[in-house]
């Protein structure tokens, strides 16, 4: 499973989303759009908006910390990756 999360440094909802992924033992790649302009562009293109966090769970784009949507997207995958 490929999980990407787009964040800013102080964003509390980003922290919540990362905590949830960790709790579920899901490995993820984080992109800080505050310091990474190309990631910011990529996030805007994927989600058609500019708020964080944005999660890309195997192509499923979730805007904001939406616990149910994240859990649903993770559950629809055949297996979880190892925890980071």
């Amino acid at each position: 499973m490929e999980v990407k999360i787009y964040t800013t440094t102080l964003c509390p909802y980003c922290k919540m989303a990362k905590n949830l992924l960790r709790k579920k033992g899901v490995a993820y790649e984080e992109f800080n759009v505050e310091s990474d302009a190309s990631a910011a562009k990529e996030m805007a293109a994927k989600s058609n908006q500019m708020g964080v966090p944005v999660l890309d769970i195997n192509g499923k784009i979730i805007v904001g910390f939406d616990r149910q949507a994240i859990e649903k997207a993770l559950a629809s995958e055949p297996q979880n990756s190892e925890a980071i």
Partner: protein
Amino acid sequence: MDHEHIAYDIAIIGGGVVGFAGAMYAGRLGMKTLVLSEMTGGTIILTDVVENYPGFKRLTGQELADNIQEHAMDYGANLVEEKAIKIVKCSESCYSIFTESQSFHAKTILFATGAKHRELGIPGEKEFANKGVHSCALCDGPIYKEKTVAVVGGSDSAAKEALVLAKWAKKVYIVYRGEKIRAEPVNMRRVEQKISEGKIEIINNTNVNEIHGAGRVEYVILDREYSGSKKFMIDAVFVEIGMIPNSQLAQSLGIATNSKMEIVINRKAEANLPGIFAAGDVADMEFKQAITGVGEAVAAVYSAYRYVNENEFICACNDEEFEKSIIQYGKGK
């Protein structure tokens, strides 16, 4: 079926600082405590710096929330991170609380459900949500590095949002409908400092009427001219015009609210139904701060403790009613 063995003395709805403060004290009083939390941490986590919580000169909202949660969990509260969607009185002294997938019994309930951001309700606000219209400076402020942004509102919270945004933005305008913004003196001094540096400017007696752009916010329309035009070029609008109490669930149970949708409580934090309490932003107290909400929560829990013990309640529901509720609202636990 006997459900007494799974009945909680108190179910706290809401996992912000107020809810966990209540849970901490309930634990101290030996109460079997459930915390149902849709968004653990609550709205204080959106606050960059908290400087008005006694005992801590300066810490982030997230740190304060984490500290209070940790303190509560040390006393053995059961935290369930799900949204309470329905509460029914299943017997004279017992409430059933339902989430999407579970149900619980409790002798008393503390509503610590907080409040959500009020929206402007103007054209363009929904269309440009997260495309230049935002409500969390801490989250989305860094995206507007060296850009021009506006905060709509005149409260202390609006001033704090403007100060946060001034870290990144080229210029921050505070657009306020009233004569003068109402920041606390300590924050007003900080705003004035930023005004003297040219980072913040206040536009008083002005409303934002419309938000426009192409794909993202480019300008707003004001209700009066600023610098010779009602069209005001801006890269983002952060809305900070107050909060709406999250009292719908309480209202569905028949709990009295006032015209602002706040739960009406007395000095013991009791609502109008027996065994029901409220504290924090959802309650009808004028001055809403973490410290005042936490105090209310402790008063509520003490009142709940006395209510439970003085009445020696047995939280046992009519089996037929409970099973009916499960079928209607969710699976029993």
